[in-house]
């Protein structure tokens, strides 16, 4: 009897144990399943975020391209004006030169030939100017990441300053500002991704012109808006300074301006990505640095340093 009870208890105990193990295993399997689904969920969210980030970068590119378009129209009309007119002048001059040759006035013919040659150089120079603007516009809109190449920072700075200025002028007729360039002609070419770097400069110029325009709205008539770009070579580094005498950055937001989506512009006017992308491109993309000096109501100066 005792043995029977013992055996029964043993069997009962075994069942309980088995059942317990079974429950335990099921729980572990269940937990494992939910972990896996959580992981999948996480992976999916991460992919979505990655896609959203790419879309935002593209959006920012297109937004700054939109700001460029009007500037581009103006910047192409000007070189075209020279290409068309100097080539027409040359056609006339060639006729005149032939007439002088027929008359035997070779000295005069030689003088005309010199003028034709000079005009030809102007045509070439302005043709290249238009070409470079179109090429940069195309580079600007492309989504692919590109390679570093030796780049003339002065030319890039000058071109984007003008594009930014004319873009804003075309959008808002009340906007105006003086622009100054102090470009160090001894600057060596430096390895950068030209379209990325161009976009950084464009962002800084757009911000600078925006700041002087904001100040102009409240300042007295004596206020003279001015945006300048200065390049120099110091201790093996290229320094690009973009300075405006605009509204300045208040101390309490100075730390935030490089953060993604931070903008002081009214809703719909700024993506809040310009400076954060610029920071990424300079620091991560080119191993450089961006510093800010500013005084509220007086000036803002962005200083980019990049190693050669």
């Amino acid at each position, binding site marked *: 009897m005792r043995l029977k009870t013992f055996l029964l208890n043993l069997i009962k105990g075994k069942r309980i144990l088995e059942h317990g193990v079974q429950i335990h295993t099921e729980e572990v399997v269940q937990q494992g399943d939910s972990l896996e689904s959580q992981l999948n969920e996480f992976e999916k969210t991460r992919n979505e975020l990655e896609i959203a980030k790419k879309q935002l970068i593209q959006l920012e590119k297109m937004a700054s391209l939109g700001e460029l378009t009007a500037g581009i129209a103006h910047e192409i009309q000007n070189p075209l004006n020279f290409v068309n*007119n100097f080539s027409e002048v040359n056609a006339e001059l060639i006729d005149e030169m032939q007439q002088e040759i027929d008359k035997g006035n070779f000295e005069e013919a030689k003088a005309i030939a010199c003028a034709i040659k000079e005009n030809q150089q*102007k045509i070439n120079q302005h043709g290249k100017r238009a070409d470079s603007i179109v090429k940069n516009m195309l580079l600007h809109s492309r989504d692919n990441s590109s390679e570093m190449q030796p780049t003339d920072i002065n030319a890039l700075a000058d071109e984007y300053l003008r594009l930014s200025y004319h873009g804003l002028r075309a959008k808002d007729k009340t906007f105006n500002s003086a622009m100054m360039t102090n470009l160090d002609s001894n600057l060596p070419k430096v390895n950068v991704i030209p379209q990325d770097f161009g976009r950084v400069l464009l962002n800084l110029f757009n911000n600078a012109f925006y700041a002087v325009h904001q100040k102009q709205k409240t300042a007295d008539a004596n206020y003279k808006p001015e945006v300048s770009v200065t390049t120099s070579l110091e201790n093996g580094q290229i320094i690009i300074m973009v300075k405006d005498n605009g509204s300045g950055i208040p101390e309490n937001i100075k730390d935030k301006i490089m953060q993604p989506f931070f903008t002081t512009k009214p809703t719909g006017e700024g993506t809040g990505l310009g400076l954060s992308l610029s920071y990424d491109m300079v620091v991560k993309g080119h191993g450089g640095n961006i510093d800010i000096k500013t005084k509220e109501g007086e000036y803002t100066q962005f200083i980019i340093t990049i190693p050669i």
Partner: protein
Amino acid sequence: MKILVVDDEADVQPLFIQRFRKEIRSGEFDFAFSLSGEDALEYLEKNHSEVVLILSDINMPGMTGIELLSRIRHTYEKPPPVVMMITAYGDEENRRQAMQNGANEFLTKPLDFTLLKEKLKTFVE
């Protein structure tokens, strides 16, 4: 006749000199150039009695062509110089602003010099 050309593009100077080489040679026209609205006002202050006609770009850094035009209209009443605006933006808004501020003509870039010469000759007569 003295013509003042105001444009921030430096190559406008050789272009005008070449385009009007015959008129310059014959003494019909005489050109002066300024690279900004501010420069133009300074030039006019010293030489305004000589300048009969002003050709000005609109989109210039600093003082715009429209501001220059309005300053000229307020400062130099007798005799009022002829002012023609030349711009790469040929839109209605620009034209309206130019005309409202007292421009005599509104021309667009790329500049048609045959047309410009015709216009200049009608104003000379």
